[in-house]
């Protein structure tokens, strides 16, 4: 359920918010294309992780686990940077 937005009297003085508010800003809903990761093809070179501007490549113990669709904007940089001989990431049109 969506919370009712505060009136002006309820807001803290001076444009102050809590820390790390971008965590609540789920930029995943900006996407028109989504990257699809192929675990079979991936060599775990982590180039996609280096280039991703939204920290949306999920990595554990040096291995790619998948893509964080909550924040991935679908920019396609990961698919572009994945080495030509690997091509473990393909961009797929988002369907509603």
């Amino acid at each position, binding site marked *: 359920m969506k919370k009712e937005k505060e009136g002006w009297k309820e807001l803290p003085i001076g*444009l102050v918010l*809590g820390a*790390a508010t971008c965590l609540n800003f789920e930029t995943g809903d900006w996407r028109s294309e989504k990257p699809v990761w192929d675990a079979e093809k991936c060599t775990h070179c982590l180039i996609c992780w280096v280039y991703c501007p939204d920290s949306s490549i999920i990595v554990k113990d040096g291995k790619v686990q998948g893509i964080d669709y909550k924040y991935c904007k679908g920019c396609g940089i990961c698919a572009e940077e994945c080495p030509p001989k690997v091509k473990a990431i393909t961009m797929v049109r988002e369907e509603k």
Partner: protein
Amino acid sequence: MIVARTGNEAMAEAMRQINPDVVAAYPITPATEVVQLFSKFVNDGLVDTQFVPVESEHSACSACVGASAAGARVMTSTASQGLALMHEILFIAAGLRLPIVICLVNRSLSSPINIHCDHSDTLASRDAGWLQIYTENAQEAYDTTIQLVKIAEEILLPGIVSTDAFIISHGMERVELIDDKEIPKFLGERKLNYSLLDTENPITLGPLDLQDYFFEHKRSQIDAMNKVLPVIEKVQKEFGDKFGRHYSTVDEYKVDDAEVAILVMGSTGGTAKVAVERLREKGKKVGLIRTRVYRPFPKDAMTKALSKVKVVGVMDRSDTLSTLGGHLYNDVRSILYKAEKQPLMKNYVYGLGGRDISIEEIEDIYDELLNIQKSGKVAKDIVYFGVRGE
């Protein structure tokens, strides 16, 4: 302690006694001396201030914003083009509700380039959301600087205290300084609702604010402006009770029984008082209204003062370049729209670029106002007084 000080020296003394945590400044005539003297206080170890000599006024104001958000008591000084260069950051400081205080010297904005007094600089920034108090002499500049720090920190709005270029800034006057020890007691510590440096309680300051919240934040800022006049009056009273010099938002001089009055800001108030004295000796019922506080506009006190007279001459050391005359004139016309008693009114735009205004000239204005009272007619609403070729 009674001393001889210029306006700039008096403001620098006030800053020394306030002992701000941070001063970031860039020099500009005629306000240079304020921070030049203050930087000497820093070098001599008389204050604990972190002094930041920056590369421009834009940077000065920006450094002030950062320091103030970190929780520091912050001051700076500038004039004219310097304030214009701060313009962008002025709005940010006010929107973030940072109680920064600028000791300003009013100097004409270019072009033509000029270093002398008019009020075009601060009036061009009147809508930036800063408190603005215009002073009549060095003593008032000193006293108001101290008051403004307290006012700004209580309401959480930034403020400008100003003096007239050279007339006050470089004119040596008798000034009564308050004992050094009294100022920190009067001001107390700045109370913080947050600090950028408090890593235990991290915050986000000044985030992007779109259609869903911008209006609410602006409304909250407008509310602070609506509520600050009682705070100004309270601090003026506390100051008066403690140090013996009493101030009001709108200064009235012999207005109660006056037929006509002049309305001014700044040092011309002092000149006009002498004119009032001279004319009173001749039996002419004239008075003087001087607004100290210009932003927010002291509507009620001004309406009350204006309602006492039949004719008012509004003297503006500025023009809005809008065909509507000076700034003060426009504000006063606006507040009187719903007033029961509306005096006849004439706007005298005068003194631009430091053009001198004499006691005799002000007497002439009073005589004209008395003639308007007799005839009941204002032939011309807006005149440019003291300019050649009119």
